[in-house]
């Protein structure tokens, strides 16, 4: 943990397209343990928002309870934030989104917060296609209460104290794909090159974007026998694909040398370019995406990268057919039917 961050920045660091500097996306000093994977994820969020040139005050960051849920204090200091109750971030995000559809919603949660106490809220936010990016910082344990296994801990994984997890683990990505999330990805806090474009794509996708980021707990779950340790994940992960995310404002300039390129155009005309082996699954096919996850799991391999994208996914406001104006901007003239209508209603009750 760091107690001091120098305020000095190189005077010639360029601003982004909206005129913001990277520091405009930074937050308070982290109070997480030194080396915590969550800090790397926070940095990736900062980098992604900077690169997308999002106005910080238009982003809303929300969380539940736990180490991961503390982290919104450590990024996007110029954005509104809401640290709510354990497992309930999705409902706060739902309400906030219903009130103002024009803001960008970023929810941060943990494996305990999402896969245990908040499982109901998580899957139902997915089902209603809430327009948000939902990031789980997944370390397989409860850090703030000193290392108990969580529901995403792999069966057979061994803790620092030597106890073996005997329960089935919950694969949040697989659930999200089954329940209709439009963008599902998995990454590793140690792989910034993959994580930053994933977050950018997730923020641009309309509907619920879910990213499960394996983020080792250096204090309680980083022993070599743990399947959520830095060492294990580095040795046992395989990317579905390498890819570039191209926001809709940019033109494609990169040269690709991979054998196959799949383009997925998102609702806002951003494009995901996937470079993959010719026999890799089609990531816009739900069943292939789930099969691929299961196949890799059977081989003891963690599959990372974009797992599934539905470029046509909708969102809650479209499902409910709500006004295109933010509901929080409406006043009496929009909302109150007036006294004459009330008199007519009275008459119907006589």
């Amino acid at each position: 943990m760091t107690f001091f961050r120098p305020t000095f920045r190189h005077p010639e660091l360029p601003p982004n397209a909206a005129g913001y500097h990277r520091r405009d996306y930074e937050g308070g000093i982290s109070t997480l343990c030194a080396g915590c994977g969550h800090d790397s994820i926070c940095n990736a969020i900062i980098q992604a928002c900077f690169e997308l040139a999002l106005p910080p005050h238009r982003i809303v960051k929300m969380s539940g309870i736990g180490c991961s849920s503390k982290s919104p204090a450590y990024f996007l200091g110029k954005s509104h934030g809401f640290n709510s109750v354990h497992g309930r971030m999705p409902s706060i995000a739902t309400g906030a989104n219903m009130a103002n559809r024009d803001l960008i919603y970023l929810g941060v949660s943990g494996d305990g917060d999402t896969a245990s106490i908040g499982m109901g809220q998580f899957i139902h936010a997915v089902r209603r296609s809430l327009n948000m990016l939902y990031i789980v910082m997944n370390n397989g344990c409860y850090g703030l209460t000193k290392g108990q296994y969580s529901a995403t801990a792999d069966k057979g994984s061994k803790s620092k104290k030597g106890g073996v997890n005997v329960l089935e683990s919950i694969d949040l990505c697989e659930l999200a794909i089954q329940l209709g999330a439009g963008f599902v990805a998995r990454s590793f806090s140690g792989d910034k090159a993959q994580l930053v474009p994933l977050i950018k794509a997730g923020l641009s996708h309309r509907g619920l974007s879910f990213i499960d980021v394996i983020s080792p707990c250096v204090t309680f779950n980083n022993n070599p026998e743990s399947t959520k340790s830095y060492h294990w994940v580095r040795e046992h992960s395989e990317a579905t694909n390498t890819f570039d995310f191209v926001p809709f404002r940019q033109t494609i300039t990169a040269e690709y040398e991979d054998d196959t390129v799949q383009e997925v155009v998102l609702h806002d005309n951003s494009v995901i370019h996937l470079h993959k082996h010719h026999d890799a699954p089609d990531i816009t096919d739900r069943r292939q995406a789930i099969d691929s996850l299961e196949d890799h799991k059977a081989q003891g391999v963690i599959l990372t990268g974009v797992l599934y994208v539905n470029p046509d996914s909708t969102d809650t406001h479209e499902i409910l057919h709500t006004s295109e104006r933010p509901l929080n901007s409406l006043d009496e003239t929009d909302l109150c039917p007036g006294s004459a209508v009330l008199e007519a209603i009275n008459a119907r009750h006589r």
Partner: protein
Amino acid sequence: MKPLAAINDFVIRFATVNGSGSASANNLFAKAVFRMGVPVSPKNIFPSNIQGLPTWYEVRVNEQGHVGRRGDIDLVVAVNGQTLRQDYDSLAPGGYFVFDSSKPLPEDFTRDDVIAIGIPMTAMCTEAFDNPKMRPLLKNIIYVGALAALLDMELEVLTDSLRSQFRKNPTLAEPNIRALELGYGYARDHHAGACLLTVRRSDRVGDAIMMDGNSATALGALYGGATVVGWYPITPSTSIIEAFGHYAEQFRIETDTGRIKAAIVQAEDELAAIGIVIGAAWNGARAFTATSGPGISLMAEFLGLAYFAEVPAVLINVQRVGPSTGMPTRTQQSDLLACAYASHGDTKHPLLFPCDPRECFEMTADAFDLADRLQTPVLVMSDLDLGMNDHYGPPLVWDPARRYDRGKVMDAARLEALAARWGRYKDTDGDGICWRTYPGTHPDKGVYFTRGTSRDEYSTYTEDSSTYVRNMERLALKWESAKRLLPLARIKITSGEARLGVVFYGSTTPAAYEAIEHLRHRGLAVNSMRIRAFPFQQEVIDFISAHELVFVIEQNRDGQMRTLLLNEGGLPPAKLVTIAAYDGLPVASRFLVRALEEALAERGVTLPTSPRDQGGVP
């Protein structure tokens, strides 16, 4: 035995089978009485069941406008074989037993103080109508027709009602009207003069309406500007959301786009329902949920967060008999303590107590202003009786000049004009209420991080003890400010000399006023106070202090309002006596009179007995 005789003053009970379509027939009868200008009060007494179990519909007819439940039954329409005996036994002496005489009454139905009136409903129905699916429904209409003849009612009022009910499907009106006339004709030809209870046209109704509290509540939310609803189905609150959705489809559609100016989200549970409300209100929309006791328990954690993070929320609690596997279709006022102090830590929440549909409407609309002004959850305490039954009462009124009070909200211009540093939890006006912002208002001002109590006035993280205490003291000051904004109690002083006071609230109101009036006729003067809000203003405490003894009438066993009064008002416990009516049925005035008499007798006060009179005890 003298048969009961009365004009526009009696109680009829329909005993039927749930799911047999009797509800609409019974409602047709009640509405006809209302349309003849006579105040009427129907109560649906129904089981937690969709089809098959016994259900009752009690209609009180009262020219004087006493529309609380009275207690005792003067005439029963018994068409449920399962409860025939029970219904027969429940009749008051001199009462009338209207039954389906297609089969003879069992031989042991031998009360000599009951007038039995047989109408062969099933036989008539089978003979007159071919469609077997329609028969059970039309049988219900036959007994309404018979009743109309027995009570000397104007048949045209009923036929007009049927025509308007089926105006979109006139082919259905025809058999219904025929069934009505069949029943009417049979009773007129076979039982002329048998029944001495009469409905006579009157002019007591004026501009009154008949509406259920839940519809009025939904209208309050519609008029009050609610745009986000988070909810989970639970009896008896569900019809609020259904009505809100129904009204939103009529009055909240954008003409140019066809889109709805409301987001109604059916959540996965009550935890999510209140979370949606809090998230939306935090983000500047007016939001509400409606639930009942079990939902309150689930929402408790979130209510605490909203209290400490100071997020507005409107919650309608349509109370029922607990617990989850309790009696969800029976009424009670038993969530007061659970709501007043919901959650953990030092939490307390303003409560509003509507007594009729008009107050359901007004208090719900007001709750949005109060929640925004006070930046805290506000709970409207309805109940099953108030919410689900039709109530006779004054029409709903909306002041066209009324504007929403959104409370202390910094818009972009205010933020721009700030001279000093803004603090989300900094009290600059001395009322304990701070200025807030909605996310996204200003590019670089007004941003804050919302969390519970581990923060200072500027919403910066801290666990400093003195900062915490300072915040808690400010919240206590805000609680004091709330008292000045909440509706005052309705105090009626009938005599400056009276040493007795009676306190009540919510759906108990009409029965309580009737009982008090009865006591006054018997020579006992009592003053009354109808509490309309929590926290209590000084006037509430003063009323109690000014009387020697105060009865607190409420629909729960433990005297929860009494506990609140003692706890908040620092009153001597012996001064407050609970009169509890908590059997799950709407409270009855005759029960209250008896209970008050007994409580007085225990304290050495006996009342002269009076002959049975209107609204009185037999």
